[in-house]
């Protein structure tokens, strides 16, 4: 089966430039710089019909259009390597096993869109990937793939690697820029859009690692070839990150448009321990928890959206029939409460409200109207939150209320957890943590410094 991003990862020393070059590495860069105009590269990307792999699926070529038309110098490429979505690890594999692929992709994007400075913003906890990307950049500089007059052409570019400090919100396309500029990781209002006023107020192209890593093959073999790799009207390949209660979890680079059934049962080996599928998520923490009967859903941006949720990062999470959906929902809710940046009211307060409501369900002390309250709070968060975090954070919670209503009724009205997971001890959850105490705890945990 065709592989693009994961093609080289099992090679010996795959992270090294020698290995990369031995396997066609930097040939796309050479081709683009010596045989193609920036417009021609752009044209191939347009022909590929690629949707951005960061989660929104926005057409990559269209995003590039904005940048080409934007005024201001310098222009930046910002590679979003702040992969923090639970259940998602495709970028990490590329960064750890094939960092030069990413470097080459960044260079192609910069060439096509007329950018002269590239920033890679990598998640702070990706220690190995950081070291390897850093080393890759050094090697590429040494070999003249980055720097002035690359490959003897008049194309010059500089590349910088920056680490995050542990905030999920910094994967948001404007918060990442604030963070890079040394500001608090809060999202910015749009407009102005990053393509016009992005990093340091200059035009900025922000693309995901996976998006950029597909570029070398698109340049080498053509956008049309790439596009035809998809099935069920999907374009290209996509890395599906499969985790949870399956026999063979892992990253699978499959044609875009593969169904969930094929992914879970054919590639993932089915539900573990011979159990039944109860629920699953198509795309990381911020997607809905879907019931087993939606297993034939085509995993592409549009079909998943039509089903009322998002493909997101294509981090598919599988839950077997021993799972309690309330328990599953509260894990996501806790994650979002922890990761809400606190800038806008509906997200800051709403993520907490949802988690508190679920906490009461889990302990068997929820009020009868709890499902209504969850619906109301979720509606307000989705409609009014400032950025995507708050708009999508209620999905894993409210979707369980909608898709698994009976289970909630059992928790709330009968005070029973059908899966036998929740404590149901009738205890009022105690939530109050002094802010100072919390900070002291955090500092103590991290030994006073962030690793």
């Amino acid at each position, binding site marked *: 089966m065709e592989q693009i991003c994961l093609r080289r990862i099992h090679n010996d020393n795959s992270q090294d430039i020698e290995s990369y070059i031995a396997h066609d590495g930097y040939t796309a860069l050479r081709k683009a710089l010596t045989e193609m105009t920036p417009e021609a590269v752009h044209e191939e990307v347009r022909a590929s019909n690629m949707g951005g792999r960061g989660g929104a699926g926005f057409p990559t070529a269209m995003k590039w259009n904005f940048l080409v038309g934007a005024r201001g110098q310098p222009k930046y490429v910002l590679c979003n390597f702040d992969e923090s979505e639970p259940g998602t690890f495709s970028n990490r594999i590329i960064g750890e096993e094939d960092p030069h692929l990413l470097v080459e992709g960044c260079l192609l994007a910069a060439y096509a869109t007329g950018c002269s400075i590239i920033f890679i913003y990598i998640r702070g906890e990706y220690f190995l990937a950081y070291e390897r990307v850093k080393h890759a950049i050094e090697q590429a500089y040494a070999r003249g793939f980055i720097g002035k007059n690359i490959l003897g052409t008049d194309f010059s570019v500089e590349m910088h690697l920056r680490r995050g400090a542990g905030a999920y919100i910094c994967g948001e396309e404007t918060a990442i820029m604030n963070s890079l500029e040394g500001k608090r990781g809060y999202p910015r209002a749009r407009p102005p859009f990053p393509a016009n006023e992005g990093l340091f107020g200059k035009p900025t192209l922000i693309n995901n690692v996976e998006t950029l890593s597909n570029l070398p093959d698109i340049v080498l073999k053509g956008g049309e070839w790439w596009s035809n790799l998809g099935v069920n009207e999907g374009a290209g390949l996509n890395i599906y990150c499969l985790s949870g209660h399956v026999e063979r979890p892992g990253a699978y680079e499959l044609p875009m448009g593969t169904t969930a059934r094929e992914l879970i049962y054919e590639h993932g080996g089915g539900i573990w321990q011979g159990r039944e599928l109860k629920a699953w998520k198509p795309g990381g923490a911020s997607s809905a928890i879907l019931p087993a009967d939606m297993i034939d859903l085509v995993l592409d941006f549009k079909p998943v959206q039509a089903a009322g949720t998002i493909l997101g990062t294509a981090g598919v999470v599988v839950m077997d029939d021993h799972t309690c959906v309330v328990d599953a929902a509260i894990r996501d809710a806790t994650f979002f409460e922890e990761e809400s940046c606190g800038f806008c*009211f509906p997200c800051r307060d709403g993520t907490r409200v949802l988690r508190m409501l679920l906490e009461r369900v889990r302990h068997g002390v929820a009020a009868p109207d709890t499902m209504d309250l969850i619906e109301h709070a979720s509606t307000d968060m989705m409609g*009014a939150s*400032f950025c995507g975090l708050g708009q999508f954070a209620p999905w894993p919670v409210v979707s369980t209320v909608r898709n698994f209503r009976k289970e909630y009724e059992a928790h709330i009205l009968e005070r029973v957890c059908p899966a036998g997971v929740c404590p149901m001890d009738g205890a009022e959850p105690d*939530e109050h943590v002094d802010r100072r105490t919390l900070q002291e705890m955090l500092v103590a945990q991290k030994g006073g410094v962030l690793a």
Partner: protein
Amino acid sequence: MPVTLTVDGQEVTVPDGSTILDAARKAGIYIPTLCFDTFLKPYGACRMCVVEVERAPKPLSSCNTMAMNGMVVSTKTEPVVHAQQGIMEMTLQHHPLDCPYCDKSGVCDLQHTAYEVGVYRSKLGSDNPNEPDHEFSPLIEWDPNRCIYCGKCVRICDERVGDSALTFNLRGFHSYIGTQFDEPLDCVECGECIEVCPVGALLSRPFMHSGRAWQVNQSESICNHCSVGCQMHVETRMGEVLRTKANPALRDQTPVNTRDRGPGDGMLCTRGRFGYDYIHDDGRVKQPLIRRNGTLEPASWDEALTLVANQIAEAKSQHGPDTIAAITSGRLSDEENYLVSRLMREVVGTNNLDSTERWTFIPTLKTLGPAAFNFSITQMEHMDAFLVVGGDIMESHDVLGMRMRQWVRDQGKALIQVSSLPSRQDSRFAQRVLRVRPGTEEHLVQGLAAELSRQSSNGSAPEELRDYNLETAAADTGIELTDLSETAAQLAQAGSVGIVWALGNWLIGSAGNFAQAAANLALALPEAHLFPLAAKANSRGLVQMGAGADLLPNFRSGDDAQARSALGRLWDVVLPESQGLTLDDLLSGADVSVLYIIGEDLAASARNHQQAQTLLDQAGFVVVQDLFVNSTAAEHADVVLPAVSFAEKTGTYTNLEGRAQRAQAAIPPVGEAKADWQIFTELALQLGARWTYKNSDSVAQEIAAVLADIPTTHSAPRFGWQELPALPSVNGDGKLLLVTQDHLFVPGVTGRYSSNLRRLVEEPVAELHPAQLERLGVSDGEKVGIQANGADVTVTAKANDRLAEDVVYLPVGFPDAPVGALLGAEATVAVSVRAAVPAAEVGSAQPRARNET
């Protein structure tokens, strides 16, 4: 191009760049907000202001979405109202709703907005953390429970004050308002964060729990602490001033607000916001005092005024009117300075009337002419670059300093800071900092003027400047020649340059010289404007009223016969022609039989301490008219007449740009004290005048007629040369240069009676370079003794590595550390500094000083 859109079916046209919220409010449609403030940039965090816009996929926040032609906006749809109510419920869930005990109740944005969106409690239950308050500073406290985390305090501190002292710490629901890394709060303590807080989370510690919004009366007033003239409200209850705050009308939340926000742009500094409590200080004189057998004893007004009137009449008949002199103050209103001038000139019959403006404002005026004072803060805002010389305006004119920070940061204006002391603008706002040797500011400016005029006239400097150049300036000021030539080049290319200097203590003895140097520089540049900043709230009014020995109204000179006869006609007297005694004349040993001192603590003023003592000792009869028994009154007064503060009288104050502003009486006088205008009137009547003033307004009407009759004559500044003063020298004898300037938290003698401000600076502190302290064998916080001019002052020492090594900085305004006694007649003197012996060791066998330098 105006933009037309439809809001709730109503067509609205707004200027380009308006937001949907602007348009809705213009149409009279209410959209709730919590984090929005016309004072701040749009933020979009509270999401209360969401609206639905046709063809937009989701509701949009109206505060930061631009209005566009043809937009169709709905503000009351079901999803919008649902979101607003939902957000309010979430907010109320963790807000304590302790409204019965909250200072903000009644003027609380959260209360108001909850009322408007129809939510009074949270269905979600209560989730209040119940944490203790955090004391940020002696004046500012934060209640984490009430905080709704709208970020206004963080934003105003950054966007308007420029200190960026507050921040959000941690993340999400657990974030809290604090300082970066929980360091102690280091800021100008302006309290803008309290003012902007929509709920009762940020609190004024002096004001807490002293009155509810509906119990207080508000009076429009003008801040009396410096000459910027910030408009404010005095809040009172039952005759007591509870606090002062920025005039709320200036912070009106109507977005399309073109109202002039006044000289202070609607802000106040720490002095204005917290320095009000001297009004009710226990030290206030509440009734007249007469010295009997060496002690000041209470007396009636009749007794006191009769005694004063008799003394004046007797002195006049026995020694002549020119043995009687008065000293007035720039803290008095226009009306009062006008009346004291009329009292002395008409009723007493002498021109012996002066003030400390003699040391800075008047020489500046004499050098530059009245045209140089014909400027406005708006004009200042339009300069492309600022050359700020001398005292730090963040210390002396804080709100103007904050505004300048905004011009620099938001509008890209250049700021060049020239001073001998570190300033609050140095690190983050000044493009260039020139740290000159103390007392050589005019040498630097003169050098730049010589260089630039030489450049602009192809090598030939004007006659007046030919002996001076950048090399001599570099040698005199201690600034590298390359820095000077870069500065000159920058100024030449800057466009319009504002030359700004505060008329403060640093100028004493050289105000005229400096003004001439500044005028030369302005004339040498393609476009430059002079901005001399008056010191006291009504310094400018005092001069304009003609309350100076050689001054007549509207900046006319005392020997201007035409102005004098015009004034004489209006007053129906022949005015005395004799040369009046200036403050300098008085201090250099004039024979005075009656000395009438109004609003000035002469014995503690920053200059000529010894001479002031001599003058006061030798004067036949001393009358002090003040709020307090200051050191002059305590030691020298024969009669003390209790005057009132700005809050107890109505009056006009003319700010540094010449804007005359009214302050309304907020409370009746404390005790038996009387307004100065009233005291002057009663005294004049006792002396046989036929004045008919019933109130301050009737004086104001007369002033209007006088000013109309005696117009300003205009003469623009010219090139000129004045001998530059000798360089202050330490002569290698191990002495240090004493430098002083205003201290933001110590606004003059009155400020020392404000216990709020005393909380910020409890005692005077001398700052020295750490290397110097080490040489003296003194560690940070120990005492040093400073000696000069026969005076010896012992103060706590503090290390400051931003000072030059041969400099010691001691701020003015502390009666317990009289800088004036050390300075003598100079702005800078060489002083001996030594380690002071702790009290316990005095008299023991140990040597008196460990290490003298």
